[in-house]
């Protein structure tokens, strides 16, 4: 990075802002008609194929010569609006439409030619280059009349902080009118001061200003100040800002410590097993090495003996023993030193970081709980249909997952017809309910009705339906995952701070689950239908004699459970993916949710989902690198849980418990 030239031209650049607005004035006007093109040609190769390593050269060349239109060129360049004409290597602004490019001269702004995009080289600066260009443009953009541009400039300065931004920021802050932007500028100035200022007192002040700040930006700056390097010396150097001393054998591996020394050529390297073997191979004389016959060299002991014989004969370097290593390592001190030489700064930074530790821990726990809650609501949503069909009616419906899938595909089909995501969602939810309600009723009438007395066979028959539906979906929609996109108002996230945030979609799913819970409780406990459902499930014969039509009730209940699964499918499809196999992913988990919670109780299902969600996140927290392990142990736990509490968390008592 070439910092100095940029610093040197800073003032000139700030002036050039006005230059751009008033083309009459000009300091660096050359006699050429094409001043900008001339500058660019002087760094032709770097402009044509930009890379993060070379872009500072281009920027310094451009900003130094300061030809008119430089800033516009930089913007166009990073927006991929510049092309190179291969014949003469000249650069043009390009406007692409359908395979053709309209070339505009970068100095005169006149349209020069229409060519095929294949005949020119499109210049595509990568993200690293764009970041550099943006950082260079910060100085100009900070004064831009458009507040959005000023905010963008602040963001880009936060991303690639650099000491020269300090004066530019101070200048911009002085003239900033928008209070919110001014606040952000002050904060950025603090961060920059903490990191770059040379005056210790100012830095410590700035760092103290970051105490208790849990934002990622602040902690990033503090951690940057606390970066260390590992080193060793015979005695601890006086001038180094020591972070910690490492004691070999305790907090540092002895072999590693010795390797550090041997890498520095202070001691001979310790030969490993392979090295010993190679040495022995190179020293075979008449079928033996150091007196040991070759065929006996198939144990480590014999190999070491042979090596020692060679060592005694002086043909090979000595074997490094444990004692040798200990002796060698004892002569040196191993330590980590801060890259920042000023101890006052690092102390302040460490203090500031320590001050946030407890709060960070608390917020991380909160974040984890939110994730667990969200996961639980997804499990609940997937299982709530089952809570009715299995929990209330005791029908094992293995095709439940496929109803979820049907709902999701309904959402997808609606979305292909109605382009507006919000409207399509509003249409899709009731439609998904309708489709799966109908499917559920059809299935109940055609299949399940005949199997009420044979629950195990219901399981198998519905499994047959499940594989048929899955394959049918594959035949209709193909095997590719289909998009079901959430509307924009569900696509963002709610953030409390940098540590705790949750996506709006998950919040939506949570409320949807809550709504279903209330709705279901209401239907089952407060309506005529609910009363009849409970009557039919508890004693169909008695219910029938009281004038309730059990067939109708069973049909409606099953339809209701299936319909809810369909609506859940739309939500799950938005959150994950719509494939023909999505239902199969949820089916076993859903059954476990219902069983763990306690069959027959909606609250039980809620408790089951809560337990499973919390458990999974809890295990994940212990072992964050392996999500699969968390799922495994969660299932194991459920198996054990059911052994010890076969009726689930919320066990029904008395008659309602059935059996």
């Amino acid at each position, binding site marked *: 990075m070439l910092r100095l030239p940029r610093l040197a031209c800073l003032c000139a650049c700030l002036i050039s802002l006005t230059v751009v607005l008033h083309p009459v004035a000009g300091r660096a006007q050359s006699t050429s008609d094409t001043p900008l093109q001339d500058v660019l040609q002087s760094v032709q190769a770097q402009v044509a194929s930009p*890379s*993060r*390593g070379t872009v500072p050269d281009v920027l310094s060349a451009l900003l130094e010569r300061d030809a008119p239109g430089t800033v516009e060129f930089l913007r166009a360049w990073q927006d*991929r609006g510049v092309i190179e004409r291969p014949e003469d290597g000249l650069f043009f602004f390009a406007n692409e439409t359908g395979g053709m490019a309209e070339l505009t001269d970068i100095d005169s702004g006149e349209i020069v030619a229409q060519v095929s*995009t*294949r005949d020119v080289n499109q210049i*595509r600066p*990568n*993200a*690293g*280059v764009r*970041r550099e260009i943006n950082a260079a443009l910060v100085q100009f953009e900070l004064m831009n009349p458009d507040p959005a541009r000023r905010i963008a400039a602040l963001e*880009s300065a936060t*991303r690639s902080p650099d000491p020269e931004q300090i004066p530019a920021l101070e200048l911009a802050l002085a003239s900033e009118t928008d209070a919110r932007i001014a606040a952000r500028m002050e904060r950025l100035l603090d961060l920059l001061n903490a990191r770059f200022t040379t005056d210790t007192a100012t830095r410590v002040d700035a760092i103290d200003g970051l105490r208790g700040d849990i934002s*990622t930006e602040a*902690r*990033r700056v*503090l*951690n*940057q100040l*606390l*970066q260390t390097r590992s080193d060793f010396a015979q005695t601890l150097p006086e001038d180094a800002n020591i972070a910690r001393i490492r004691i070999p054998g305790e907090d540092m591996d002895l072999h590693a410590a010795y390797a550090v020394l041997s890498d520095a050529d202070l001691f001979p390297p310790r030969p490993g097993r392979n090295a010993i073997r*190679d040495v022995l191979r190179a020293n075979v004389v008449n079928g033996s090495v150091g007196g040991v016959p070759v065929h006996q060299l198939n144990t480590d002991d014999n190999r070491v003996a042979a090596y020692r014989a060679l060592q005694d004969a002086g043909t090979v370097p000595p074997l490094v023993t444990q004692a040798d290593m200990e002796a060698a390592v004892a002569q040196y001190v191993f330590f980590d030193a801060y890259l920042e030489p000023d101890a006052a700064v690092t102390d302040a930074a460490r203090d500031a970081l320590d001050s946030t530790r407890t709060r960070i821990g608390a917020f991380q726990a909160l*974040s*984890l709980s939110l*994730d667990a809650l*969200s*996961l639980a609501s*997804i499990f609940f949503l997937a299982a709530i249909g089952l809570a009715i069909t299995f929990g209330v009616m005791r029908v094992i419906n293995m095709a439940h997952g496929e109803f979820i899938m049907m709902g999701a595909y309904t959402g997808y089909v609606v979305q292909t017809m109605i382009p507006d995501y919000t409207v399509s969602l509003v249409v899709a939810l009731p439609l998904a309910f309708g489709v799966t309600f109908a499917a559920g009723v059809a299935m109940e009438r055609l299949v399940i009705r005949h199997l009420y007395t044979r629950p195990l066979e219901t399981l198998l028959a519905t499994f047959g339906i499940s594989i048929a539906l899955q*394959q049918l979906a*594959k035949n209709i929609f*193909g*095997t*590719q*995952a*289909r*998009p079901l996109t959430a509307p924009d108002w569900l*696509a*963002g*996230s709610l953030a409390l701070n*940098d*540590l705790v*945030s949750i*996506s*709006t*979609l*998950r919040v939506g799913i949570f409320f949807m689950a809550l709504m279903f819970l209330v709705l279901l409780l209401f239907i089952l406990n407060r309506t005529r239908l609910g009363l009849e459902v409970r009557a039919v499930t508890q004693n169909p014969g008695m219910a029938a004699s009281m004038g309730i039509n059990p067939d109708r009730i069973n049909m409606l209940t099953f339809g209701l459970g299936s319909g809810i699964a369909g609506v859940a499918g739309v939500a799950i499809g938005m*959150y*994950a*993916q719509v*494939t023909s*196999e999505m239902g199969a*992913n949820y089916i076993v988990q859903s059954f476990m949710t219902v069983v763990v919670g306690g069959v027959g109780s909606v609250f039980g299902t809620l408790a089951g989902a809560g337990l499973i969600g919390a458990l999974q*996140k809890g295990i*994940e927290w212990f072992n*964050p*690198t*392996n*999500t*699969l392990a968390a799922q495994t142990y969660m299932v194991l736990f459920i198996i054990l849980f059911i052994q010890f509490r076969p009726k689930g968390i919320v066990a029904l008592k008395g008659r309602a418990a059935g059996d």
Partner: protein
Amino acid sequence: MTTKTLLASAAASALLIASGPAFADCPIKVGVLHSLSGSMAISETTLRDVMLMLVEQQNANGGLLGCDIEAVVVDPASDWPLFAERARELLTVNEVDVIFGAWTSVSRKAVLPVLEELNGLMFYPVQYEGQESSRNVFYTGAAPNQQAIPAVDYFLEELGVESFALLGTDYVYPRTTNAILEAYLLSKGIAAEDIFVNYTPFGHSDWSTIVSDVVALGAGGKQVGVISTINGDANIGFYTELSAQGVSADDIPVVAFSVGEEELSGLDTSRLVGHLAAWNYFMSADTPENEAFIAAWHDFIGDTNRVTNDPMEAHYIGFNMWVNAVEAAGTTDVDAVREAMWGQEFTNLTGGTAIMLPNHHLAKPVLIGEIRADGQFDIISQTEEVEGAAWTPYLDESATLVSDWQELGCGMFDTATETCVQLTSNY
């Protein structure tokens, strides 16, 4: 290279004159071993279609050795033992001359022993973890040094990434690739504590915590980058969560090795603009060959919305190389074709020329693309042809291994001991 090809084909034709019949039995049979059902059908069905298209084109151009080519399509149904079974059937019952197939590493490993036992020939079109070179397989997809390593170099040099999150699906390709990348990053001076590794199951959808963990790495004071070997459907949830948490490519760039045009067609990509993928082919490559290929594909499949992707190009190159090798050898005999394959050249769809190396991997250019709002990629970096390496030098166990079937006649040759470790592959 060309002299070698000439020599090889001269040797092959000499052999042929000696052995007599110059023409193979008609029709020449090409086995297509891609899952048409089950979890992998998502990716593999397209490759079956590409093979049918290529066979149709070749037949329209007069077939091969005066014969028509017949594609024998079977469905291993994403069931790995079934891959071995179907491969055996193709080779012994259908008596195909070559197989184009497999996608996942485990399916390839299932087929390997059958191919080596029956001396079959297979073209494997997908980027994979390397550490293998079978006498009977030509790897037309990328080895790690043709995809993963250049992408990491790009992260290190162009984006200045210093802290890496390696996220992958828990299976062999991500595991091995990440092992190689970890060793590579350590050799580049990245500290072990700056490498965060996470594995998730296939089809994982609950990404919230993992994405938060990655975002939290940013507090460490270093530029964070994500290297994703997440496979298949799980990507949809992952990218949805990324965009929901507002992780822009400017803050935390993500480079993916298993996300191509096909995978993005299941996503609204407007929120993913700027994230990256590394491949040897992008549909957006602006060359006449690619334009013709895409036009032929749209024509064949009857849908102009269908995309093309990297494994499709791999089959395109592989099939054409095989056709040329058969013509050069004058026979479909596996041993003769294998010799004619070494040094085969064919024009890439992205420009430049692919060359088949004696280690059965291709020399191909590496492309890095940024996701655009329309689900395509902006190619921002294209290297010269990189030679695919069967064995990675970054892992201790393979540091001294090389593969050269032409000179050494061995796919796993230990240069330290100067011995051929084994002629069959480890599966």
